[in-house]
């Protein structure tokens, strides 16, 4: 009988993840949505910017599956195109913010002392600086492109991740097994990578999957206060915000982009749960 090989934690993780079928399904759906966005020009039934003044605010019909908006543009096509912006905002900002924040939190929690103090005060400053203010500044300086907003949103998720990870790090640092590894002489980097990070990761993943949704909604908030995406690039949040004054008149204007956001957020959260559970060796 040949003994199984020593799999790296990453391989182990993948092995467990593969068994989570709902998570895989969610991941597949996300890929599908991303593909739809990428290939929007080939998939979208209409030009998302083409207005038809004879078909304003049409309810869903065979011609326009999701109806038309106040310019007579096809909402479905706009949602497909809008995925490009919205998914980019959600994914990039959450991933970038999560990555930087996690590193910061690990360093801060692990080092303690003045490094910790410095990094955490930096976070305080970042926090105190309302994200919206920066978003406005970015919009003001660089123009209202959503691409610019991504970075603003990313920067402002950094402190949350940093503090979360720092919290876990502080706890894990005390764990007997971390001390044990330390006494062996495991390098700081490996120690953090193999023993601390996996313990902090569940929180990061869950928060990240939540963050993707809220990042998409930042677009809505910005549009709401009048700083949205640059027209006519459709973006789910902006579509929602613009459609709100038609509530009660033409509800499909908000319904469909809302649905799109819901589905995407749901998928990311299911995926997040799957990843998280796969990190927990006690769950089969």
């Amino acid at each position: 009988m040949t003994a199984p090989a020593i799999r790296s934690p990453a391989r182990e993780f993948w092995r467990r993840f593969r068994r989570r079928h709902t998570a895989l399904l969610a991941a597949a759906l996300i890929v599908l949505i991303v593909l739809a966005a990428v290939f929007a020009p080939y998939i979208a039934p209409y030009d998302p910017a083409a207005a038809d003044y004879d078909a304003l605010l049409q309810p869903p019909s065979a011609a326009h599956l999701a109806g038309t908006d106040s310019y007579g543009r096809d909402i479905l096509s706009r949602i497909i195109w809008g995925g490009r912006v919205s998914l980019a905002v959600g994914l990039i900002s959450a991933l970038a913010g999560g990555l930087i924040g996690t590193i910061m939190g690990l360093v801060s929690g692990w080092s303690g002392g003045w490094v910790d103090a410095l990094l955490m005060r930096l976070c305080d400053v970042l926090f105190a600086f309302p994200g919206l203010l920066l978003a406005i500044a970015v919009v003001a300086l660089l123009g209202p492109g959503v691409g610019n907003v991504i970075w603003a949103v990313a920067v402002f998720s950094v402190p949350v991740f940093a503090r979360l990870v720092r919290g876990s790090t502080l706890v894990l640092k005390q764990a007997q097994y971390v001390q044990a590894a330390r006494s062996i002489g495991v390098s700081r980097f490996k120690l953090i990578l193999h023993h601390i990070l996996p313990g902090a990761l569940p929180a990061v993943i869950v928060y990240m999957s939540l963050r993707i949704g809220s990042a998409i909604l930042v677009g809505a908030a910005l549009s709401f206060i009048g700083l949205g995406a640059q027209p006519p690039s459709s973006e789910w949040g902006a579509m929602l915000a613009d459609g709100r004054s038609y509530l009660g008149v033409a509800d499909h204007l908000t319904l469909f982009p809302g649905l799109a956001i819901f589905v995407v957020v749901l998928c990311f959260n299911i995926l997040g749960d799957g990843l998280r559970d796969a990190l927990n060796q006690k769950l089969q």
Partner: protein
Amino acid sequence: MADPELLDVQDLSVSFPAGRGRTTVVRDLRLAVRPGETVALVGESGSGKSVASLAITRLLDYGPGRIDSGRILYRDNGGKVRDLAQEDAEAMRGLRGPEIAMVFQQPMSSLNPVMRIGDQIAEAIVQHRRLDRTAALAEARRLLERVRIPDAPRQLRAYPFEISGGMRQRAMIAIALASRPRLLIADEPTTALDVTVQAQVLRLLRELQRDLGTGLLFITHDMGVVAELADRVVVMRAGERLEEGTVGALFAAPSHPYTRSLLAAVPVLGSLNDEALPVPFPEPPAPTGPQDTVTAAPPVLEVRDLVTRFDIRGMLGGIRARVHAVEQVSLDIYPGETVALVGESGCGKSTLGRSIVRLEEPSSGRILFRGQDVLTVAPNTAADSASRRGIQYVFQDPFSALDPRLTVGFSVAEPIRTHGLLKGAAVMRRVEELLDLVGLPREFVSRYPHELSGGQCQRVGIARALASEPQLIIADEAVAALDVSIRAQIVNLLMGLQRKLGLACLFISHDMAVVERISHRVAVMYLGQLVEIGPRQAVLASPQHAYTRRLLSAVPVPDPSRRRDEVAIDDTEVPSPLRAPDDVPDVAPLIQVGPGHYVARHRVGGLY
């Protein structure tokens, strides 16, 4: 049988998911406990003892394990016989505590890290005895005193990480006793206890049996304890019951070959009275005679005036008191030498060991490893790495020392990879070799710590310590959770390595018989200080310090015919290493009383 059974386990089988199927780890187990009876469950490490006990309490439900078949008949307080395997969760909850209580094997992880010890005990009292919190805390204090925890009022307010391994175990016992159970399942409750405390705890259990008629299912590896305590013995191996019998009959005439070999491997204190050097167990592979491995080379480790103290902080960070865990300890260990460190639970043995591997920060003193002061070397230098590789520590609580998120294979390979000893597939081969050495199946490389039994965990810890080919091993109760045959195998393994590589060893243990077997010299600690140190033969045969004498007198003998009904135990107040922040204890110098034999002559905590 005249007595109605309290517990009657019939054909119990338990399995765990494994890969795509399930593996059965307890198979058709039969077991009975009568009121007031003590049944010892002994057997090979990993044979399913702990799992069986979890199945009985149905705590198994909260994990991946499943009861596949069998009945667990239990006669409750009202005289009704119930099949625990069929009861619903709520009914089981009602039974746990006042009816069936359990002491878990891994005391560290089994205590809630963020709750005070007192609250964890009082909670059970409040739940089952309808006392208010203050009364419950008072009761908790009484319980702590009864399990001989020093300074009980303060320990009530301590958190698990603040107390020693033995204290945790006693706290677990106190929790189990708090609800005055009718059936107590104790999984290795005394492994981390020094013999004096062990004797007291055993007496406490007997009292409980007498007063309440509690049935006791006692899982242990210590045949001395079995002989001392048990009425009947059940022997398990590989998930199955091998044989059962009254303790006298079983010890006198074991029927199964495994039982026979088990009893043969039991070390008896005093069997090496005439031998100056350690001698391996008469186990395969064939022993090699006395362990004359100590050379005249300079010591690998020199500890000088080491002091480690812990500040006890209040909720908001202020220092309230200080634990003098290690006070001015000096100690040398030579290549090829094993020094046994013994002493009462909580006296600072682990702290000393942990200080040497720099898991604690000593307040003063020096630690020289091969002439290099390890406390002053800069981190991440070659010297630092050399000492971290050269000294390995086997943790007293093996489970919490393994990263729960990493497989056994990865944990064992970690020191090899860290120090770049091997590369690629060679790492894997070495890990397998190490698992073989400690008697674990190779497929355990892909297991996680929570899928191991206590003894298996401990062996992983040992394999991991050996992985970096150290010059010095600090083994903190490293064989306590192992059954006698495996224990003999591990001790022989260490001695073999000593012979081959000149490995030095600081062997922290409560088991005097093993100490006698393995050590060249014995050091005795008391309240953080070294009170006696000398050649093993001299210390064990003619102990000079009163504490050493007391320690030796309490060692149980693995022979039921020589059972002491009342051990001479002094019930004086247990001294405590806790002091006010500015109250430094005085340390008496060691005085030579024989060749290499030193003893402290001064009054410490009621002794002189």
